[in-house]
C-alpha cells in the first residue's frame, strides 16, 4: 500500500511511463518471433520422425522467423529513434545475426552448429520477449540529481 501511495504521488509529479505505439509494434513482433521460432524444433522433430513434410514446414518456418527477425530489427530502430532506447536494437541485431548463421548452418547440414545455435537462439528470443514486455517501452526518464 505504501508503494501505491508513493506511485500515486510520483504520478502526480510526472506522468507514468506508458508504452508508445512504436513500443507496441516491437512487443507484438517479439511475441510473434517467439511464437514462430518455438515451432522450429517441433517441425524438425516431425521431420526426423519420418514425415517428409516436416522439412518443408521447417524451411518455411525458417523463412517466417527470419522475416519477423528483420521486421523486429526495423521496429527496434524506430524504438531507438523515437524513444531513445538502444538495447532492443542491439538485442534484435544479435538475434538476427544468430538466425542468419542458423539458416546457413541448416542449409549446409552442419548439425554440430545448427542444433546448439538453434537452442540458444530460442533462449535469446525468450529473454528478449520478457525484456520488452516486463516494463513499459517508453523514453527513459532522466534520473534526477541524487537518484543514483
Amino acid at each position, binding site marked *: 500500500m505504501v508503494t501505491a501511495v508513493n506511485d500515486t504521488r510520483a504520478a502526480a509529479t510526472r506522468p507514468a511511463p506508458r508504452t508508445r505505439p512504436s513500443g507496441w509494434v516491437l512487443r507484438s513482433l517479439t511475441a510473434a518471433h517467439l511464437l514462430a521460432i518455438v515451432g522450429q524444433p517441433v517441425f524438425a522433430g516431425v*521431420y*526426423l*520422425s*519420418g*514425415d*517428409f513434410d516436416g*522439412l*518443408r514446414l521447417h*524451411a518455411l518456418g525458417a523463412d517466417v522467423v527470419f522475416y519477423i527477425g528483420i521486421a523486429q530489427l526495423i521496429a527496434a530502430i524506430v524504438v531507438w529513434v523515437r524513444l531513445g532506447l538502444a538495447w532492443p536494437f542491439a538485442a534484435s541485431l544479435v538475434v538476427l545475426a544468430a538466425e542468419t548463421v542458423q539458416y546457413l548452418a541448416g542449409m549446409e*547440414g*552442419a*548439425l*554440430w*552448429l545448427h*542444433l*546448439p*545455435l538453434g537452442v*540458444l537462439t530460442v533462449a*535469446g528470443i525468450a*529473454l528478449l520477449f520478457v525484456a520488452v514486455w516486463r*516494463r513499459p517501452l517508453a523514453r*527513459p*526518464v532522466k*534520473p*534526477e540529481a541524487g*537518484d*543514483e
Partner: protein
Amino acid sequence: MSEGRGLSRRRVLGIGGALGLTAAGWLGASAALSNRPPVTGGELRSAVPLPPAFQVPLPIPRVLTPVDTAGGVDRYAITQRATTAEILPGVSTPLWTYEGTFPGPTIESRRGRPVTVTHRNLLPVPTVVHLHGGHTPADSDGYPTDLVIPESWGNSVHTGHDGHVMHDPRAVTSDLTRDYTFPMNQRPTLLWYHDHRMDFTAPAIWRGLAGMHIVRDDAEDALGLPAGPRELPLMIADRAFAADGSLDYPSIDRTLRTKPGVEDPYVAGVLGDVILVNGAPWPVCEVDAARYRLRILNASNARHYELEAVTEDGRRLDLVQIGADQGLLAAPITHATLPMAPAERHDLVVDFAGVPVGGLVRLVNRLGSGRTAEVMAFRVAREAADDSRVPDVLSTDLPEWNRSQAVRVRDLSFRAGRMGDGHGWLIDGRPFDPARTDVTVRLGDVEVWRLIADVHHPVHLHLVGFRVLSRGGGAPLPHDAGLKDTVSLRPGESAEIITRFDGYRGRFLFHCHNAEHEDMGMMANLEVV
C-alpha cells in the same frame, strides 16, 4: 530512479556477459567435439605393423570361367570356403572366401544372357548370396533366410536379433548347394555379390565374402571407352587386423553362430584402419600415360570415402563420371572430388596423359584421417598411344519417370532406436522381421519414396534402380545422376527417389547398406504383387 527499480547497468552487463560466454563456450565445445565431417562408425586399430602405402601391386581378381555355356546360359560354380591369405606382407590372415580368394572371382556377363551360379557352402555357418544391383527374380535374390546350410551345421537353429528363434515360414533353405539364376535383363554395369545372411551379413562380408560381377552389352562396347587392361575394377574395403593376423571384427559372438550384433562402441558401424583395394593394402598400379576406366565399388561395411586423384605436384586430375550404380549416365559429368557410400559404384574415366612418366597419382580419401586418407596410387610407367574416347552421349536408355506417373508417395524414416533389449536401427520405427510385409507395391507401378535419415544411411533397394528426384528438399547433387540402386543420405537429410517396380513379383528387400545397421534391424520387406 529507473535504475533503482530495475537492474543496474553493471548487473545487466554481468548477466549479458554470462549468457554470451555460455553460448560462445558451448558453441566452441560443439565445434571442437563434433566430427566434421561426421564419422560413420567406430574405428578398429590394427595390432600388427602396417605396410607403407603404394608398395603392394594392385591385384585384379581373376575372371571366372563358366563350367558350361550350353543353351544360351552361362553356368558357373563357386565354392564358399575358408582359407588363409597373405593380405599384409608377411602376415597370414584366415578368410572366408568365394573360390579361395578375396575378392571372389569376377563374373563377366552379357545383357540378356542368363547366368546360373551354383554355390556350394563349405563354411562353418549358413550363407546366402545376393547379387547387389541385380534385376533378379525373388527366388534367386538371396533373401536373408533362404539359407544354404553347410554339412557341419547339424541341427543348430537360426536365432533372431534378441536370441529368440526368428521364424520365417516363407524361407526356402537348401542343404550344401543352391543354384542362383540371374536373367541379366538389365543395363550394363558393375554389380557385386556378397553374403546376405540374416543378422550376420556385416561380419561375413568383412571376412571376405564379396566379389564383383560385370554386365556388358554391344552398345557400351561400341562407345570406345578405355577397355581391356585400361579398364580396372576396384573394390575398396577397409579392414583391421588382430595380433594373430586375423581380421579383427567386434562381433559379440565371434563364431557367428548364434548371437548377432557388435560390441557397443561399434553399433554405428565398424571401420578399419587399413584400406584395401581388390584385397591389397594401399596398392599401386602401373599405368600408361593414357585414359583409364576405373570401375569403383565401395565394399566397405560402414566407411564413406570422398575420392580425389592428386598428382605429386598437388594437381588434381578430373574424375570424369560415366556411370552410376545402374550403368552409364546420359552424358559424362566431371567431378573434382566424388563422395562414395557403402555399396555405391562409380564408373570413372581418369586421364593420366598429362602426368610425366615416373609420376605418381594418389587416389585419396578426403573423409579419412591419417592412413585412411590414402586409398591407392597409380604409377605412370610409360608413354602410350590412346585411341579411347569419352563420347558426349553415353546412353539414351535411361528411364525417365515423372512425379505425375507416381501412383503412390511413401515416407520412410531411417533412424536409431531400441531393438529387443539393445540398440538397434529402425525403418519407420520397426526392426526387420522377415514375417512382416512392410511395403506392398503392384508390379508395374511407379512410386515416389521420400527417405529421411537421422545419421548417414546409404539406402539400397533390391530388384530395381531408381532416379534421385531431390535431396534435402532441393536439387539432387551432381553424383546423384543416372540410375541408382543405393542413395547416400547424410545426417538429417532426406531424398526423394522415383522408380517403377517392374520385372518380377515376390518378396524383396530394401535396407540401409551400412552393413552393421542392416544387421541391427535396418531392413524391411518389399512385396511386389
